[in-house]
């Protein structure tokens, strides 16, 4: 994902390749790292979802404009990973958006072919990264985004163009005009650029219209932006006030300062009149391990609209929708895309994107570099990261988050997504004969009577909710033994580096070598308590013995870890269902992504131990409900 670029510099390329490929064991340069990763990718995908395959690569190839360095990242990213990149050691708030240059320079010209193939994502990344350009430059940028004219002229040509872009790249420039205009209209003199940093003593541009509490962040926002980009402080501040208006419900009172608006502003006003937030429409869920992003791509854009669309907005749209991978770690789950959805009177597609939480600083940095704040959008964010990164969003990215409770979002999201179905198919499903590999079938489930419902959300940790109606739910309990535990233990036990790798190993392992079963102790069933011989008596129990420790493979250990965590979640979920007197249990969360082993085990265990009383249900968009809920909050839906 492009936000990987924020940390430019020569070292970062190597670092990235290294991080992704081998968790930092071989600091190889591009080539070898790529190779490694490619082969890894071949073997590490239990379920080939989330990408379009080579045709899309071919199609996007035309956009090629930027460095081959991005190739590495793009490829790497297609091996979707929880933790392939390590940015921790890099400065989280790199002030200068120079990375594009450095990448270009880092790339040796001799690697041209690779560079050409590789540029797929990077151009698009560049589109977002480049952001809207000021004045005439913006036209060039737009051209670049269209991707027709650029990218074929070889390295020097590209470089020239890039420098041009960079030089022009004063993000948010069109807004500057607008902002000035509106600010003037509002009667506040535009602050001199140089004094921006000290403008905190002045009233915010929205001045009288804004409450003091609101003014404070506005000022900070203004100062931080202007400090970095010499943007007049009031420009950003106006943006801020508009944002609020757009957020609907947050502050419907808008400064009446749009009289002198440009086309783009008119469009925004249109949107506001319809009580509809401005594009882009995002919902963000920042979890402990993964960030989930849903993006609504309007498909009913009129020609006029398109023409008036702010460049940065357009670039975002193009970037997100024409790529399946972003930077080194971002993934768009193409197979989950919801088509022809109507949201707030707009028709479009809903896209599902994820990237590791540890790339969050880079994401924020990109937001800053590309001057996201100029888009006047509201970032509705949920998950713990909405709190953790709030300050960073504000001070670095100049973005104010609208923080939402993750459980509210989760429930909103799941109910909504279930109601719209999955492109004509059922969202919810269950397993028939889950224990039988031959006869096991995944069947649609009609969740027509959703309540009461036990919702088990398995992310890094696990939350269990009892849902009685749309607005009535409670968190029953949670456990720290979740997806993070599975992956964390697998990393320690097997040296694996990605969730996919861990799952793939697990799929080839035999947990009965690791676990002590009832039959290992009693020679068969334990009849006194009618416990079947196949039941696990002690997870990792065989590992108490030195001989057995020496006899197990990494795959066995991965499998045992998966079984242990899954069984435990099933067991706690079952107890909660009994205590709450609920018999349908929906398991969601990214732990279940491409994790059929766990889903089938949960299905079987719930059925077996409850003697058929409990039903385990699953949902296609397993990990994205929080993000969807956040988006719905933005749109004030339902």
């Amino acid at each position, binding site marked *: 994902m492009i936000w990987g670029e924020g940390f430019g510099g020569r070292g970062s390329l190597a670092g990235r390749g290294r991080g992704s490929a081998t968790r930092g064991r071989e600091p190889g340069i591009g080539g070898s790292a790529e190779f490694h990763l490619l082969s890894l990718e071949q073997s590490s995908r239990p379920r080939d979802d989330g990408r379009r395959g080579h045709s899309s690569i071919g199609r996007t190839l035309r956009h090629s404009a930027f460095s081959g360095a991005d190739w590495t990242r793009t490829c790497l990213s297609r091996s979707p990973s929880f933790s392939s990149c390590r940015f921790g050691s890099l400065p989280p708030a790199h002030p200068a958006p120079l990375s594009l240059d450095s990448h270009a320079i880092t790339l040796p010209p001799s690697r041209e072919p690779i560079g050409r193939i590789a540029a797929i994502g990077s151009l698009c990344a560049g589109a977002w990264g480049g952001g809207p350009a000021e004045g005439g430059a913006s036209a060039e940028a737009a051209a670049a985004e269209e991707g027709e004219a650029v990218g074929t002229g070889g390295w020097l040509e590209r470089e020239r163009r890039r420098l041009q872009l960079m030089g022009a790249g004063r993000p948010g420039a069109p807004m500057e005009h607008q902002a000035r205009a509106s600010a003037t209209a509002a009667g506040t003199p535009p602050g001199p650029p140089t004094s921006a940093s000290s403008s905190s003593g002045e009233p915010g541009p929205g001045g009288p219209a804004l409450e003091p509490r609101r003014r404070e962040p506005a000022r900070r926002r203004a100062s931080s932006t202007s400090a970095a980009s010499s943007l007049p402080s009031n420009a950003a501040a106006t943006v801020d006030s508009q944002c609020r208006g757009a957020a609907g419900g947050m502050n419907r009172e808008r400064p009446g300062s749009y009289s002198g608006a440009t086309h783009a502003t008119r469009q925004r006003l249109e949107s506001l009149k319809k009580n509809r937030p401005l594009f882009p429409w995002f919902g963000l869920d920042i979890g402990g391990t993964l960030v989930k992003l849903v993006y609504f791509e309007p498909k009913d854009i009129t020609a006029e609209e398109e023409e008036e669309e702010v460049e940065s907005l357009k670039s975002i749209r193009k970037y997100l929708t024409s790529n399946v991978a972003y930077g080194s770690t971002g993934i768009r789950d193409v197979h989950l895309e919801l088509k022809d959805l109507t949201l707030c009177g707009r028709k479009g597609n809903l896209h599902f994107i994820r990237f590791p939480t540890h790339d969050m600083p880079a994401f924020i940095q990109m937001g800053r570099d590309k001057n996201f704040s100029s888009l006047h959008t509201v970032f509705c964010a949920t998950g713990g990261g909405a709190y953790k990164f709030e300050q960073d969003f504000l001070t670095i990215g100049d973005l104010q988050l609208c923080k939402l409770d993750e459980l509210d979002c989760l429930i909103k999201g799941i109910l909504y997504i279930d109601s719209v179905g999955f492109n004509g198919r059922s969202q919810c499903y269950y397993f028939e004969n889950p224990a039988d590999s031959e006869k096991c079938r995944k069947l649609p489930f009609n969740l027509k009577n959703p309540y009461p419902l036990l919702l088990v959300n398995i992310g890094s940790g696990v939350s269990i909710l009892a849902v009685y109606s749309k607005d009535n739910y409670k968190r029953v309990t949670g456990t720290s033994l979740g997806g993070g535990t599975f992956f964390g233990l697998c990393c320690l036990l097997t040296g694996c580096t990605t969730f996919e790798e861990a799952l793939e190993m697990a799929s080839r392992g035999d947990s009965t070598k690791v676990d002590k079963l009832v039959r290992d102790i009693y020679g068969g069933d334990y009849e006194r308590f009618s416990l079947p011989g196949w039941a696990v008596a002690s997870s990792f129990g065989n590992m108490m013995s030195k001989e057995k420790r020496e006899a197990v493979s990494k795959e066995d250990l991965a499998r045992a870890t998966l079984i242990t965590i899954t069984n*435990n979640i099933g067991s706690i979920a079952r107890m909660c269902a009994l205590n709450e007197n609920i018999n349908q249990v929906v398991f969601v969360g990214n732990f279940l992504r491409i994790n059929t082993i766990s889903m089938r085990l949960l299905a079987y265990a719930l059925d077996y131990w409850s003697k058929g009383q409990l039903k385990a249900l699953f949902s296609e968009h397993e990990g994205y409900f929080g993000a969807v809920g956040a988006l719905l909050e933005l749109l004030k839906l339902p």
Partner: protein
Amino acid sequence: MAECGASSSGSSGDSLDKSITLPPDEIFRNLENAKRFAIDIGGSLTKLAYYSTVQHKVAKVRSFDHSGKDAEQEHETPYEISVQEEISARLHFIKFENTYIEACLDFIKDHLVNTETKVIQATGGGAYKFKDLIEQKLRLKVDKEDVMTCLIKGCNFVLKNIPHEAFMYQKDADPEFRFQTNHPNIFPYLLVNIGSGVSIVKVETEDKFEWIGGSSIGGGTFWGLGALLTKTKKFDELLHLASKGQHTNVDMLVRDIYGGAYQTLGLSGNLIASSFGKSATADKEFSKEDMSKSLLHMISNDIGQLACLYAKLHNLDRVYFGGFFIRGHPVTMRTITYSINFFSKGEVQALFLRHEGYLGAIGAFLKGAEQDNPNQYSWGENYAGSSGLMSTSPELYPMQRNRSGTFDLLEMDRLERPLVNLPLLLDPSSYIPDTVDLTDDAMARKYWLTCFEEALDGVVHRAIASQPDAMDAAERAEKFRQKYWNKLQTLRHQPFAYGTLTVRSLLETREHCLNEFNFPDPYSQVKQKENGIALKCFQRVIKSLDSLGWEERQFALVKGLLAGNVFDWGAKAVSDVLESEPQFGFEEAKKKLQERPWLVDSYGEWLQRLKGPPHKCALIFADNSGIDIILGVFPFVRELLSRGTEVILACNSGPALNDVTYNESLIVTERIAAMDPLIQCALKEDKLLLVQTGSSSPCLDLSRLDKGLAVLVRERGTDLVVIEGMGRAIHTNYYAALCCESLKLAVIKNSWLADRLGGRLFSVIFKYEVPAK
């Protein structure tokens, strides 16, 4: 506990070291009479149980033959004492490392005299593994018993028979152990056994229990996964690592996700959101300590959570934890307790058992002994023969890091008669006999331990003097001194070793140790002599009382009760006086008493009450022999009888200090009856009844009293309870709430205690209580 000669340091842990010589004095005692065996072989420890008869000396009192009319006059003493052999039953439990199993079996084979035994009950995972060895060595047929059944049977047994068996573990509290008084009804409860896996069993009655669930994440997971992660092989070492680690380096906390607390849900930032969550995101190395700690938290939290879910589903609030994961490990008790508190929000208590390690062996034994009806009897923990909690814990005794070679013992005496609650207790489930918890009260603990240490010389002296004809008395007395001294030292360091430490437990331990070395009743002659002297004074005292007016007499009777109570060999201040001034008389004692108003003085109310209708039946717990019972209690009894109140006089079943025993009371009463027609008549008409308490302690536990006494109390409609003496009315029962009137009286014969209560030496406690309507 005893160190075995040869340590196995050189040999590998798995091979059996035959060169071990076991010290027969300490372990496998009374083996020659052992009748029934049971064995519980776990993963690393073996627990052996056997039933044996113990022959010990008892002092018997017997009236002289009264047929010869003048014979009576010739005797200086009122009755004769003879020392006889008596046989009682005892259960022995020994816990040792599996390494010693062969040596132990050899030892048993060599010392086993009894040949009736044909079968040995065996349980535990290792029972199968060692079956052949046992059959070959002992020539006993191994009968395998179901592990869980044994565990439950054992658990029921200890909960019923051992006071302060269960305890809560409180981190950072001093002491960390908080013992529970035995609930009169132990059912229903939840037993969570954390072995290699976890079994959760709901126990509803003696025979009815149900496996309601379990988890595969247990001790085996900690051990197995821990071994993989840290390359550390031993369970104890893993725990040791864990106790030094920082789980926050490995676990993803709420604050790692939220940057702080999750306010909406009130989840603290320090909460673990994802166990091992951090080991997934960074490619750094993690320390063994940190990983062990994280693993320990993960497993403890998970078990605690499941236990709470099951407790909630089955509506139970008492959850006992056992299994090797818990056994004697403060680290795991701490994390489990934390987890239970967290998940149940304080509604469920995590309880642990002092003898948790023995449950299987006890259960297997009971299973084999069903024909003897062991459940019909009451049993008592023998403090002299038991090692106490944590005797082998490496953590508390860093010096004893090497656990192997340490034997842990538990001995239980079968009591002659079953013990039950006094039916008059207001709330049996909240009744606590002891007034001061010395585990809690460090100042008091220090004082009393020192007090008992200082009194030890005198006790030894008295013991020797009581057996002038025995050649080995001095030698045995010395052994007694050593044993009791060691117990006191253990208690100084581990006040929780035998449950809540109290003055009562210190006294009882001393009695057990004396018995251990065949000093069954060191005060028998003293009591005999004092009873003789007092009997001679009886008529004179009665006469002077009868000459008083009613109100004066009531006061004189109470003063007499109190003065008699000054004569107490148990109290150091008094024993000094008595040793040096044998003529210290009853009248002088009265002069010593504090003038009214007394330290606690409800005499006015009592007198007022006496002006009202007579009580239906009074239960009196007598204290000392001699002047106390004869000149203090009997005149008081006589007055009650003359008012028309029936009297049940309860005395100790066995000897304790100079307390009057039931047998002595029979003779004394007989002698008094001969002098006093009123007493004679009351005896004849069953208006004066003599009973035994079932106890051999200078203190009084109203929750463990002879069943006969309880039956009588109920039958006679007892409406007044009189408790006399420091041991019964101050050290214990001072705060006991009864559902009838009660009179607690004592003279404080200990200056420290007097100080504490705000009085002085010989201050008087006269506490008359009427239950709130």
